[in-house]
């Protein structure tokens, strides 16, 4: 499809390391991580987490869940809501769409409800929230919170969820079914994921060390991220960044283990490059999936080493805010976009010694360098892969 037509109008990211993009830039510049030893209430797992404490006390009444609190807190940051108000007035609220990505939706609330069942084992009044206890919870809540009345959908493909929102957003815009679209991702810490990943023996007892020789597992985190996308011809202002290409694929291998040769991931990367009409060597920076698990980093690292030259600089940013699952796709896409706008590549935090079997350009230190084309990888359970490419609109001009 014709792609070079989708502009990023605005974006915001909220994670354990920073409430918004402005703070994130400072944290990245100072190489300050947001990880902490697990202090999630009633969880005694020996691991590190990326927790956003600011959402602990948010009360949303009938919409209450930790996930919705995260979504609401993220929406308050920067100019996202103000931009949406402008677009609702300019096009009508029904011509704006919402595409949310999440892996947990609001299962945190269902967990809490089950700990407060009445004497008959039934849900108590406080927890009788049909619009919260279902996988479309994030889409329903963000539509409610923003007053957007156009189509709102939730994509739940585990850890690729909020990368795929960009692909769906591009298709909706190109099909003219909406004039602007708010794409987002939200996921929060809950016992399902903490104890689920623990059951798979994937959690590290220390801060995660993506691609390091001594990595021994992942850290879990929570986040929200949003971006407003529009067709270029309709933009009055934008960030100077376009969605240049996307690639979506399946591993067809296993529910929780990546394909041993990364064939699905390779296909997603190749599709994204083809759509962007770029050879691999044109990619200046890749924000890798880099979970710090043995399997992912080994497979992804070998694949990147085989596909990209040493001039393509890479990093995993999970050492800053942990693996935020369904919110990781957009969180890391926005880090890549912001790297292109600021010409600063975030380092791969906590990397001391690159895995002996890997050979590609990655370092713990930040690098200042002019960037034109950036990429972000997201791979999820079920073998669900998505790769995104973003470009500065006119590489001959300084558009940042």
């Amino acid at each position, binding site marked *: 499809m014709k792609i070079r037509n989708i502009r990023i109008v605005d974006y915001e990211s909220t994670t354990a390391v920073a409430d918004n993009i402005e703070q994130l830039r400072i944290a990245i510049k100072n190489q300050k991580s947001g990880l902490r030893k697990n202090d999630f209430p009633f969880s005694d797992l020996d691991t590190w987490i990326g927790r956003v404490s600011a959402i602990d006390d948010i009360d949303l009444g009938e919409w209450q869940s930790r996930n919705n609190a995260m979504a609401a807190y993220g929406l308050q940051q920067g100019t996202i809501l103000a931009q949406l108000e402008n677009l609702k007035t300019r096009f009508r609220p029904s011509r704006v769409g919402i595409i949310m990505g999440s892996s947990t939706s609001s299962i945190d609330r269902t967990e809490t409800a089950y700990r407060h069942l009445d004497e008959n084992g039934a849900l108590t009044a406080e927890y009788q929230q049909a619009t919260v206890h279902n996988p479309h919870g994030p*889409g329903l809540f963000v*539509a409610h919170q923003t007053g957007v009345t156009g189509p709102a959908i939730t994509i739940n493909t585990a850890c690729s969820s909020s990368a795929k929102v960009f692909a769906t957003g591009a298709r909706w815009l190109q*099909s003219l*079914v909406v004039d602007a679209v708010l794409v987002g991702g939200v996921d929060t810490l809950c016992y399902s994921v903490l104890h689920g990943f623990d059951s798979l023996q994937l959690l590290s007892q220390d801060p995660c060390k993506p691609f390091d020789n001594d990595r021994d597992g992942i850290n879990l985190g929570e986040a929200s991220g949003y971006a407003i996308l529009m067709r270029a011809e309709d933009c009055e202002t934008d960030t100077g960044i376009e969605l240049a290409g996307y690639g979506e694929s399946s591993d067809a291998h296993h*529910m929780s283990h990546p394909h041993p040769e990364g064939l699905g991931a390779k296909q997603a990367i190749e599709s994204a490059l083809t759509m962007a009409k770029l050879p691999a060597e044109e990619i200046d920076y890749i924000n890798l999936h880099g979970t710090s698990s043995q399997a992912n980093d080994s497979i992804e690292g070998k694949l990147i080493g085989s596909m990209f030259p040493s001039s393509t600089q890479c990093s995993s940013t999970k050492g800053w805010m942990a693996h935020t699952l369904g919110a990781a796709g957009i969180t890391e896409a926005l880090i890549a976009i912001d790297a292109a706008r600021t010409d600063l590549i975030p380092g791969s935090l906590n990397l001391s010694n690159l895995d002996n079997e890997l050979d590609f350009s990655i370092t713990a230190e930040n690098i200042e360098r002019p960037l034109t084309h950036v990429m972000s990888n997201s791979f999820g359970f079920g073998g669900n892969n998505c790769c995104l490419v973003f470009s500065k609109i006119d590489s001959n001009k300084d558009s940042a």
Partner: protein
Amino acid sequence: MSDNILRCSIKAVGGWGQNYTNWQELSELLTTGATAENTASSPKPEIIPANERRRAPLPVKLAVESSWQATQSAGLDPKGLACVFVSGLGDTQLTDYMCKVLATENMQLSPTKFHNSVHNAAAGYWTISTGCMKAANSVAGFNESVSLAILEAVTQCVQEQAPVQITFYDAPSSEILKPLLKNDQSFSASLIIEPVLESNQNDSNLLEMQLVSQATEWPELDLETHLDTSYKQNPSARILAVLNMLTKDSADTVLLPLSAETSLQLTLHNPKLVN
């Protein structure tokens, strides 16, 4: 701009539910008004290897069975088909399992049940069983799951000029969540849609999709009693509003609720009962 029409054609249908085991039986229930009888409580999709099938949750088996039927009927290899899976309720039996275990002291989850709890479990089992490496999507739209999944799949089919398989499936709700998510019916249906050229206006089962800026309710259908229960309870069974048009003699239009202020208008031209 809002009168922009997107076109595709429906190539094949598959289905498995409380009262039918394939599209032929379902289409007979839609056309003859015969009283339905209960089928087995779960399909046994042969395409999932036996050891995996034992571990596959009911919603996955529903989705894979109807997906397989549709691709077989279309004569298409699933390897070449992008897919969109939608469930309005998710796997509430697994949610129930997880939340019960997590309400106890030890919080020890089964790793298999944990990885099966992802909403894209059906897409995962499907792509693994068939060797499909194409884009697989898994979406949710609560009460508007059917219309939102059609929007998602048709825009994908048109923009990428490639066929797409869409599977709508929901299984009965767990006891504790049933007061909120009132569904005790198993229902699954799959469609294979293909791009159409402007010149091919005479294609059978040509589907025209258009967004309309007005709210609407799900249309009343004259359905056999059991199907009517599914249609009212099960978010995925609302695809019956579209499947019903396939059984008619002439073109028909339905307006489906999509969001607070939009509806999805679907017109089916040249209906032909595909098998």
